[in-house]
């Protein structure tokens, strides 16, 4: 990533705007904002850096709900049942410690939001309503219609602005700054508004930069999800893990072309929506005789794909989703966003007719490897939380577990970063590091000819979609890797015209570079995992193999190359392993046992 072409105007780092904080949080989605609230709970000086405006981050697009075993509608639900569901759907390569902390704490985090003014839909007795979702044993997702992410981010956003937290909006960070001992010392970035540089010195940094779904052509992710934080940390020495695990949500919009990939919430199926193929067959009855449409996302997505392969797809290569059997008033009150979205963008009234859906890139289960309790990475002073981190979801994320993830681990990372800042001095910045970065970031302006960033973005998305998408094999992956390496090489020669002021083409350069690095990790991880597990489907290894389930694939960045190694999946202690002795979740078992006792009594 270096350039030998010196920019005509050498940057004097002494003149760059600088700020000093105890804790800097990069990312202003749910995880970043929750981290900020936790970090600011005391004397610490805290800043949040947001790539877009406050309240616009990708969290806003989460629809269906937040999964927490409150037991408001199904009293048999409990943390251990939620634990069971999460581990099982993650195909047991999740970090059990992360899952245990999560399932024990998420209910408190949801109630805390209620104390902060979030207004969830209610049960008839006035409690927080919970809806069913794919592969959850019970009705578990607290929600507000189909706009739950917006409720979370808005609630957190107003908490943050009422705390003493400085928010820097529309700032892109391009590099993590380390001191000479390799400890976190700050971040380097620029204001998107005018392109001027800014340096944040910090004792600790929390990365909450989300996923990288924009690496794919058909995606539910917003423009921001370009993996900046993961790429930045990785190149600075942080480890990535499970990068082969990219979730393809079964139901994205298909038609018209402009909305292809836009999310259709799992809440549609949660509320009773049914999937049909072109022969009007409910094909999910065949693929999952127990859970039907509410099977886990990997299963439903693959089933839609297989129906199309068998020639039973819809006109634009998907499946029909139908909720029109419900009263129109119910659809409009429980799924108002979906109703509006289809009516205004696709001229379809979902209360009256079925609509086409197809899989869309949705979520990165993989990310920066962190310690369970703190979100600490292997770089001292660097923490990560939310989609950018890894460990909770394993090979397949359950719906509703990401909104819970950002609350539980955002808070934990914020607290840990504050504790770290209390115990450590500010690391010294190295001026050479900042000079190099300033020159690298400006280099595209000094070139007179070269590669166009939008063109490279399109090619990258094409490669990832065609060769490292929902269906993979050694052949596709190797072809993809070869093409990606060529693209990486071309990406060092990107050129941009115009000024540094709000220049989207310039911004795209860094998005492309981040995703090229992460794309390589995805492909190398997918090559290493010679089996099919959860979201990762290899046609040359179609079975899930017990011996492969013992490993997580960990990536390090060494001299410009991604190096993969296998680390053992942490083994559950007996008290947790016991939960999996029968093929039923603890809550369902309790319910069955109670029913059996009642049956015996009568």
């Amino acid at each position, binding site marked *: 990533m270096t350039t030998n072409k010196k920019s005509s105007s050498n940057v004097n780092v002494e003149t760059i705007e600088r700020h000093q904080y105890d804790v800097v949080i990069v990312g202003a989605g749910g995880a970043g904002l929750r981290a900020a609230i936790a970090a600011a709970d005391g004397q610490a000086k805290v800043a949040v850096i947001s790539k*877009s*405006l*406050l*309240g*616009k*981050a*990708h969290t*806003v*697009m989460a629809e269906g709900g937040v999964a927490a075993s409150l037991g408001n509608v199904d009293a048999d639900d409990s943390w251990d049942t939620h634990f069971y569901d999460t581990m099982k759907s993650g195909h047991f390569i999740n970090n059990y410690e992360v899952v245990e902390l999560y399932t024990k704490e998420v209910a408190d985090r949801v*109630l*805390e*939001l*209620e*104390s*902060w*003014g979030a*207004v969830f*839909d*209610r049960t*008839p*007795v*006035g*409690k927080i*309503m919970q809806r069913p979702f794919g592969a959850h044993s019970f009705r578990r997702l607290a929600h*507000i*219609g189909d*706009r739950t*992410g*917006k*409720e979370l981010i*808005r609630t957190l956003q*107003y908490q943050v*602005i*009422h705390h003493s937290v400085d*928010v820097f*909006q529309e700032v892109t960070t391009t590099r993590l700054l380390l001191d000479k001992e390799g400890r976190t010392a700050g971040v380097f970035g620029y204001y998107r*508004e005018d392109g001027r540089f800014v340096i944040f010195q910090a004792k600790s940094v929390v990365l909450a930069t989300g996923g990288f779904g924009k690496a794919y052509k058909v995606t539910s992710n*917003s*423009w921001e999800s370009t993996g900046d934080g993961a790429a930045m940390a990785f190149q600075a020495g942080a480890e990535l893990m499970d990068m082969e695990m990219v979730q393809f949500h079964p139901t994205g919009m298909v038609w*018209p*072309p*402009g*909305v292809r990939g*836009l*999310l259709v919430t799992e809440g549609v199926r949660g509320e009773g929506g049914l999937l049909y193929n072109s022969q009007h067959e409910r094909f999910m009855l065949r693929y999952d005789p127990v859970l039907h449409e509410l099977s886990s996302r990997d299963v439903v997505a693959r089933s839609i794909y297989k129906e199309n392969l068998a020639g039973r797809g819809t006109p634009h290569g998907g499946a029909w989703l139908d909720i029109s059997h419900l009263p129109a008033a119910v659809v409009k009150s429980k799924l*108002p966003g979906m109703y509006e*979205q289809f009516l*205004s*963008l696709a001229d379809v009234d979902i209360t009256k007719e079925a609509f086409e859906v197809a899989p869309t890139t949705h979520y990165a289960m993989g990310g920066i490897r962190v310690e369970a309790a703190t979100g600490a990475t292997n770089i001292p002073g660097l923490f990560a939380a939310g989609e950018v981190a890894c460990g909770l979801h394993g090979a397949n994320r359950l719906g509703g577990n990401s909104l819970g993830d950002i609350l539980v681990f955002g808070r934990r990372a914020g607290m840990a970063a504050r504790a770290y800042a209390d115990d450590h001095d500010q690391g010294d910045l190295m001026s050479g590091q900042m000079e190099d970065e300033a020159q690298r970031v400006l280099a595209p302006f000094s070139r007179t000819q070269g590669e*166009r960033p*939008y063109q490279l973005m*399109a090619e990258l998305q094409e490669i990832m979609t065609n060769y490292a998408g929902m269906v993979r094999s050694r052949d596709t992956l190797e072809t993809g890797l070869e093409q990606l390496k060529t693209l990486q090489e071309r990406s060092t020669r990107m050129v941009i*015209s*115009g000024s540094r*002021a*709000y*220049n*989207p*083409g310039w911004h*795209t350069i860094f998005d492309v570079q981040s995703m090229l690095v992460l794309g390589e990790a995805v492909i190398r991880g997918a090559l290493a995992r010679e089996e099919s597990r959860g979201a990762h489907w290899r046609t040359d290894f179609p079975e899930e193999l017990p011996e492969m389930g013992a490993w997580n694939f960990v990536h390090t960045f060494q001299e410009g190359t991604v190096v993969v190694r296998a680390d053992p999946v942490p083994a559950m202690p007996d008290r947790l392993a016991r939960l999996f002795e029968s093929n039923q979740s603890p809550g369902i078992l309790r319910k069955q046992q109670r029913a059996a006792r009642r049956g015996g009594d009568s």
Partner: protein
Amino acid sequence: MSEEMVLSIYRGDANGGQEEEYRVPLETGMVVLDALHYVQAEAAPDLAVRWNCKAAHCGSCSAEVNGRPRLLCKTRLDQYVGQVVHIRPMHAFPIIKDLVTDVSSNYRVAKQIPAFQPRTPAPFTMYQRDVDRVQEFHRCIECFLCQDTCHVLRNHGGTDQYFGPRMMAKVAEWEMHPMDVADRRQFLKDVAGLPMCNVTRCCVDVCPEHIVITDNAIIPLKERVADQYWDPIRALFRRFHRPAEGAVPGAGSDVSSRA
């Protein structure tokens, strides 16, 4: 479909600018934001437009299309066939570049709103019929189109005097929350500039979330303020029954003074 649309896009910054024409092939279902992305990729990579989700959830891509404040991601291009599509930045906010404006004033005033103050910590017992009314305000995506169209802000530069419709909906959201005990009446009257609104309902017309801001937020808030400050019977009552300092109506008064 090979129809070609002509987009006349404002290019410029605080120092001035003008509309420039770009040609874009019309695709089925295309929205204005798609057309702008086409222009960025093919003709003007430095064309500034703010956007995030392209799904009408985030409220980033607010601008004015043929004179009307709209979300670019939700505005279908095919409705303009046969016309030139003029795309300009929001008028009520200072321009940064092209279609991007400085909306920071909204965040500045939002900070001053006295926050939600629950009677007890959660879990709350609240019924759906009691929360329906506030959930309407929770639909807000903070696109600020209502602020853009509000004539107090747009034509009279009243940003310092009136917080605007978005913020009134935010106040209403907390003020009408069944568990809230804060009193924001003095704040609304003296700080937020609620009396400046003369209920022309322009904000309701442009709200992409169909929030009836004027009728459901602003008018009830005005009634609360009027009851408190201009109700003659209450004024009389207050004259004879002056509560001890800070006693009634509870937390309300000191929250207002904090604002």
